[in-house]
């Protein structure tokens, strides 16, 4: 569409040639085979199966059953007395990327965290050690229309940032409502929006502008005019959102702003939205369910700012019981290390069943990221992303033993050294000690300090 017509023509053959060369030069995504024997297999979509084997062949789950044979050279894991579940998926994190916010412009859909992947980030390994195989590396919440996000597979050990990307995962984008964009732009710079009214109009004007841009290109491509419009990656991306090519993940807290965005999207015919954080989602659960919107929430975070003061840790349970596809996310390099425990809190707060609690960190986030056909449950044909636990994953005594991505054991509690760094500083032998206990401001990372209140949590 749009400019693609021209560029495609120019580039078609060239790109093909380039691809051939690139193929030679680029390493393939590494896959392997592994047999996990005799565990309690928590499939998520087909119940729990005791004393059952799971065979992963060349990165895909080939079979689930009893007495399976390992192919030649495949690793065998004895999971006797252990629990085997799908790799945990975090629908909201900022790990493994070198930049989170391009906070200079309140509308910045053209930027993409996929351009800033850092495969050496220790956060990735430590998430694996918590059983998380996939995370949604999101842009921050400084801007009303933030950047595109990247669904990454935790292939820690890989040096190429491109190989961290989950190949074939749909494009996603971050939107943000409420206090964060109001604080950064309105309060910080005296540039609209300073209110939730202003935020609504930003969405409306952006969508209208993108429609206009598409129109101009259509006129040019159909020969109606000979003057090509100026190329604008920002409007290109907005047009892609409106065409439904990009899933929206919107940072939101208050019930009113959630309703507002659903109204705007309805007016422009846009579907596919997951409300992130969605602390007051419980108040509008029926509306969310009716719109088909999803919610990705914290297990229990609240009160770190005014818009989350009227929250409840029972949010996930209320949403689930009202038929909203709900996930529990981390948004934090520490929480991502024990998402299984965060999901377990939905049992204290709302009595969810084991399977519903585990859906919150497996198939549901997979649905929200549009990758549910590939991951999120243990089914034949799906990706070989698995975590093996000692003790039930919802127990406080659960300890991840192996985390497997594409059939490769990327975390092994017994075999790996303490120091797992890949990129070693040639200047300092002893890695620095960091005092910070509360590192709760990733969502506004890269926003200049003067715009933020110190010592506060800014999710």
């Amino acid at each position, binding site marked *: 569409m749009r400019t693609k017509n021209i560029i495609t023509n120019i580039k078609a053959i060239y790109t093909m040639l380039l691809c051939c060369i690139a193929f030679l030069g680029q390493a393939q995504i590494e896959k392997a085979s592994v047999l996990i024997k005799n565990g309690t297999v928590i499939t998520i979509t087909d119940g729990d199966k005791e004393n059952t084997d799971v065979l992963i062949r060349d990165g895909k789950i080939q079979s689930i059953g009893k007495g399976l044979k390992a192919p030649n050279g495949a690793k065998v894991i004895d999971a006797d007395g252990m629990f085997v579940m799908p790799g945990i998926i975090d629908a909201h994190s900022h790990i493994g990327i070198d930049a989170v916010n391009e906070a200079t412009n309140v509308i910045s859909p053209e930027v993409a965290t996929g351009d800033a992947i850092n495969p050496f980030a*220790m956060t990735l390994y*430590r998430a694996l*050690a918590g059983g998380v195989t996939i995370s949604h590396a999101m842009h921050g919440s400084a801007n009303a229309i933030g950047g595109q996000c990247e669904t990454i597979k935790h292939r820690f050990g890989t040096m190429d940032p491109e190989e961290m990307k989950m190949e074939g995962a749909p494009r996603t984008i971050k939107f943000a409502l409420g*206090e964060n964009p109001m604080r950064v732009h309105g309060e910080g710079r005296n540039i609209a929006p300073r209110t939730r009214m202003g935020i609504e109009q930003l969405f409306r004007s952006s969508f209208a502008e993108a429609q206009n841009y598409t129109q101009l290109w259509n006129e040019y491509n159909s020969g109606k005019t000979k003057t090509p419009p100026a190329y604008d990656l920002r409007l290109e991306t907005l047009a892609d959102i409106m065409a439904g090519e990009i899933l929206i993940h919107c940072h939101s807290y208050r019930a009113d702003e959630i309703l507002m965005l659903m109204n705007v999207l309805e007016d422009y015919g846009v579907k596919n939205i997951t409300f992130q954080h969605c602390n007051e989602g*419980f*108040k509008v*659960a*029926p*509306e969310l*369910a*009716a719109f088909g919107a999803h919610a990705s929430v914290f297990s*229990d*975070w*609240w*009160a*770190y*700012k*005014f818009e989350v*003061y*009227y*929250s*409840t*840790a*029972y949010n996930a*349970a*209320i949403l689930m019981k009202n038929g909203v596809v709900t996930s529990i996310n981390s948004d934090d*390099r*520490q929480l991502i*290390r*024990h998402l299984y*425990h965060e999901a*377990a*809190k939905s*049992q*204290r*707060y709302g009595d969810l069943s084991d399977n519903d609690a585990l859906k919150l960190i497996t198939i549901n986030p997979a649905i929200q990221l549009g990758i549910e056909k590939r991951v999120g449950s243990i089914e034949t044909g799906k990706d070989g992303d698995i975590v093996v636990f000692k003790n039930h994953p*919802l*127990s*406080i*005594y*659960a*300890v991840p033993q192996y985390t497997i991505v594409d059939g490769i054991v990327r975390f092994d509690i017994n075999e790996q050294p*303490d*120091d797992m*760094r890949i990129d070693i500083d040639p200047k300092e032998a*002893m*890695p*620095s*000690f*960091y*005092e*910070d*206990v*509360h*590192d709760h401001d990733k969502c506004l990372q890269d926003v200049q*300090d003067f715009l933020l*209140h110190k*010592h*506060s*949590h800014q999710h």
Partner: protein
Amino acid sequence: MRIIITSFAFFVVGLLSAQQVEKPVNGSFLLDNATLVTVTNGTMTGDLLIQDGRIAEIEESISPDPETTVIDCQGKFVYPGFIDGNTHLGLGEIGAVSLTQDYNELGSFIPHMQALTAVNPSSVNIPVTRVEGVTTALAVPTGGRFPGTAALINLHGYTPEQMSAGFKAVIMNFPSSGKRGRWDRRSEEDIKKDAEKATKEIDDIWEKAKLYHTIDSTSQAQGKKRIDYNPQMDALMPVFRGEASLIINVNKKNDILNAIKWVETNKIKAIFMSVAEGWRVADEIAKAGIPCIVGPIMRYPSRDSDRYDAPYKNPGILSKAGVKVCIGTNETENVRNLPYNAGFAATYGMGTEEALKAVTINAAEIFGLGKELGSLEKGKIANLFVSDGDPFETKTNILQLFINGWNIPLESRHTLLYNEFLKRDPGLSK
């Protein structure tokens, strides 16, 4: 509600108050036929009687008088209330709204700032915390070198004094040679220099305290009027004279070693707080006999090279080395996660029994309240709760809660919103 109540009278009260605010109830309560996890005297099945705010009796069987509310605890567990050794509870309400935060006064040498003064008994955070079994917390001021005096509070009361649990301590942030955060661009060299400078400042303060002590004790002995008003030094004197504990916040290995030296040189009764790298120097801390408020346990490793579970293992390693360990979450609105911090400690080497002690009797003893709090023993203050299982497990529900013998309704903003919105009325309609 899931509470099983056999007393008819109590049931009626419950019904009536459904329309209004539920209030805590005082009186005489018998926890009947419960599994009593006493912490200090093993686990037994029996009855526990609460009277006049204290545990009046623990026996295999107690016959209640007619005034006593009997609560059937068949198959249920009774635990002493949990104690969090490091929180901002009562001092902070909304993170990003600075005017709701009362734990960080201006100034660096202000040991006379009293946390108890600023504890807000009506903080929404307090009910949210206690309904999860946390009955007591240390409210800690932060920032600067000597940010003030922390206070131990019980999580029920309408005035700070009613809440006070009887322990206070001056807080000191030991000079750190670590980086403050990823934004900290100082070189290792500069950090070292800064820490050395700060250490010198502390030594200067102690020199002055020494002089102040001499003048102060002489003037008292001779009945003379003392020199001018100096609340900072007055606040430090009990610490200087070894009469009161000083809580020292310290994390990095070398800083801990320096803090031990400093404590020994100045003969201070010290408690260490946070202690992230305690596991590297557990033997040295044990040798010095300094108890530790460790935590948060669920924290991110301090160095890129650390094993991923180093923070989880920290309390277990310290405890095994012989250090008396309690746990501090360093939380405000989520102090309720204390049992899970203890659970992680238990899972990663400490064991459930030790972890349970860490959040009960050890904390009580560290705060000098071993005879009052921290276990189910006759005569102790009735801070306890009834659960349907292991309180470290998320699946477990807290069924009854007592603070100072008051039966506290298990209600908080979170439960109220749940009850209102699980089935919203009206639901979906235009």
